[in-house]
């Protein structure tokens, strides 16, 4: 920090306003996150699919693995270039102060991160270019896929250390504490699970579009139908863990970055968060609806799955209810209207996080486990005939795919904006990037809470 402070005045800032820089970085990073999540989740689906094709002699799995590896190889080329562009051009050019500080604080994790790309290339491109040849020793090919997945997981673990450090930093001189900062493990599980669900959802999305559009030949239609349900089971199966892990993630933010938590749950970002849980409800309800209708399309009635769909729908309504008719709690407080709407206030008691939104989350989790189980029971008994899928299932697949993609982008938006004026909570401000003045000993207090954030708790309002 001292070195940087001495150097900084000599640097001429890039002539771009902070607002434009923020938008540029945000757009590129959102795309980068989607690509990276697709790669990381796709690798494990690839390994499992190839293994299933090998052991269960399943043609669908074989055909799918071949297609997936081609897609992953192509998308890595594009996504990797995007990442390099983001790092080299945008970060070093626009947010140099932030980027150099991050590199200094987290030098070793970031170095390992960069090195892991070599491993990714070394595993992925042989699979991409020599798929059939490698298939002669099937165990070796599956092993390479597992290696690819492990490598990508380590990559993600390392970058999660960086990302979580920005929200809940620890003292700069203690690397283990920084690496295992309070939100690292929750973010790691949240993303690990989320990436697999995302990759599954993209596969379901592709299948959904093909079902609606082109796939008319019976054999192709059977494969696309199979692929849709396969992707969807991955997507819903892994989304099941998200309410639990996300809840804990928010809990750690509450304990260690209270202003961010307040902004997300009760402040200016609470509306975005409400849309977030609306999308979550859409994913669960759409996914469970698909499972119910898909079983029906093959001629089996499942009242239990219908009940699951209905319960999920009710939970969706519950979780989408806003907790007040204002944009944030501050407005409720300012309007002096912190009583239920039937007493002339702005509060909607059914929209409260505790207990109602929590109840909805528990409902989603339980109902989705039951639905997936019932669906896989039908599959394992060989009752479903591939190719039966109709239009409503295709639409459900597309809805789930689009929702998961949207929810990831929105989550990134919320996470980045919740840090308020900071890039690194309580350590570095966004507006220092283009117009940097080194902090003086008696200068603006960077360690205190953000000024202009007034914290009002609902329990203070009605004891």
């Amino acid at each position, binding site marked *: 920090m001292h070195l940087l402070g001495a150097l900084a005045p000599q640097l001429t800032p890039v002539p771009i306003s902070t607002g434009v820089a923020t938008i540029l970085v945000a757009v590129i990073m959102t795309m980068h996150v989607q690509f990276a999540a697709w790669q990381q989740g796709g690798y494990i689906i690839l390994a499992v699919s190839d293994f299933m094709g090998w052991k269960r002699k399943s043609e669908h799995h074989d055909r799918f693995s071949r297609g997936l590896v081609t897609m992953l190889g192509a998308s890595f080329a594009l996504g990797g270039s995007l990442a390099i562009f983001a790092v080299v051009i945008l970060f070093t050019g626009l947010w140099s102060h932030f980027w150099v500080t991050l590199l200094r604080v987290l030098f070793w994790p970031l170095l390992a991160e960069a090195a892991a790309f070599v491993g990714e290339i070394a595993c992925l491109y042989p699979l991409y270019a020599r798929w059939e040849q490698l298939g002669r020793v099937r165990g070796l090919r599956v092993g390479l896929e597992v290696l690819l997945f492990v490598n990508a997981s380590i990559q993600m673990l390392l970058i999660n250390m960086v990302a979580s450090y920005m929200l809940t930093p620890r003292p700069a001189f203690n690397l283990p504490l920084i690496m295992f900062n309070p939100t690292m493990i929750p973010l790691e599980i949240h993303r690990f699970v989320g990436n697999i669900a995302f990759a599954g959802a993209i596969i379901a999305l592709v299948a959904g579009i093909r079902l609606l559009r082109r796939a008319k030949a019976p054999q192709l239609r059977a494969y696309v139908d199979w692929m849709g349900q396969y992707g969807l089971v991955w997507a819903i199966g892994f989304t099941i863990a998200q309410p639990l892990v996300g809840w804990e993630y928010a*809990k750690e933010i*509450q*304990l260690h970055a*209270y202003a961010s938590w307040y902004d997300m749950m009760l402040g200016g970002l609470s509306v975005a968060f409400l849309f977030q849980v609306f999308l979550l409800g859409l994913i669960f309800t759409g996914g469970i609806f698909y499972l119910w209708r898909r079983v029906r399309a093959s001629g089996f009635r499942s009242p239990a799955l219908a009940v699951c769909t209905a319960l999920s729908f009710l939970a969706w309504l519950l979780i989408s209810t806003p907790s007040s008719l204002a944009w944030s709690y501050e407005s409720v407080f300012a309007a002096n209207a912190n009583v239920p709407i039937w007493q002339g206030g702005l509060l909607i008691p059914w929209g409260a996080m505790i207990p109602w939104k929590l109840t909805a989350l528990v409902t989603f989790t339980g109902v989705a486990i039951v639905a997936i189980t019932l669906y896989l029971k039908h599959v394992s008994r060989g009752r479903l005939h591939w190719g039966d899928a109709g239009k409503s299932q295709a639409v459900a697949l597309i809805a789930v795919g689009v929702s998961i993609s949207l929810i990831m982008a929105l989550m990134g938006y919320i996470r980045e904006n919740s840090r308020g004026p900071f890039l690194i909570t309580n350590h570095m401000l966004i507006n220092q990037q283009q117009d940097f003045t080194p902090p003086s000993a008696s200068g603006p207090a960077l360690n205190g809470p953000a000024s202009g954030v007034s914290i009002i*708790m609902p*329990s*203070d309002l009605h*004891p």
Partner: protein
Amino acid sequence: MSRRRFMIMGINAAGAATGLLIAAPIVGDILSPVFYKSKQPWVMVADIRHVPVGVPTAYVVMLNDSGDAWQVPAVPRTVYVVKANLSNAVQLITLSNVCTHMQCDVHWDVNLQVFLCPCHGGLYSMIGTNIGGPPPQPLFRYQHKLVGTTLYVRNVLTEGQ
């Protein structure tokens, strides 16, 4: 009734009676803590002139555990003495540092300016109001009385707000 039938009934009855004789005092023994009663004396804490306004201050006092058994009449407990500036009047509150969620030991966190429970992350305001995390109710308050400026508490808890 045959002789044999009579004896079988006798065995059953004697067995049941024997079991009852053994079980009754044991059940009573198990349930006995519910019926304990105890008296609580006043214990001196501090001179309240030494307690700063707006800074919860911890004092360790020896308090009887009500209804406790045969030994260790008093155990050390922490009392948080709070002089809170509420609507322009300083109010004196003697808070228990026992979390209302799972009864762990909460402490005043200077950085967060809240009472923090390390077990499950419960948060309380300066006057003990539960403002975050799992606690279902505010921190309990010890009954206190002032003799001059000397503060006394006793191990009788009232609900907080």
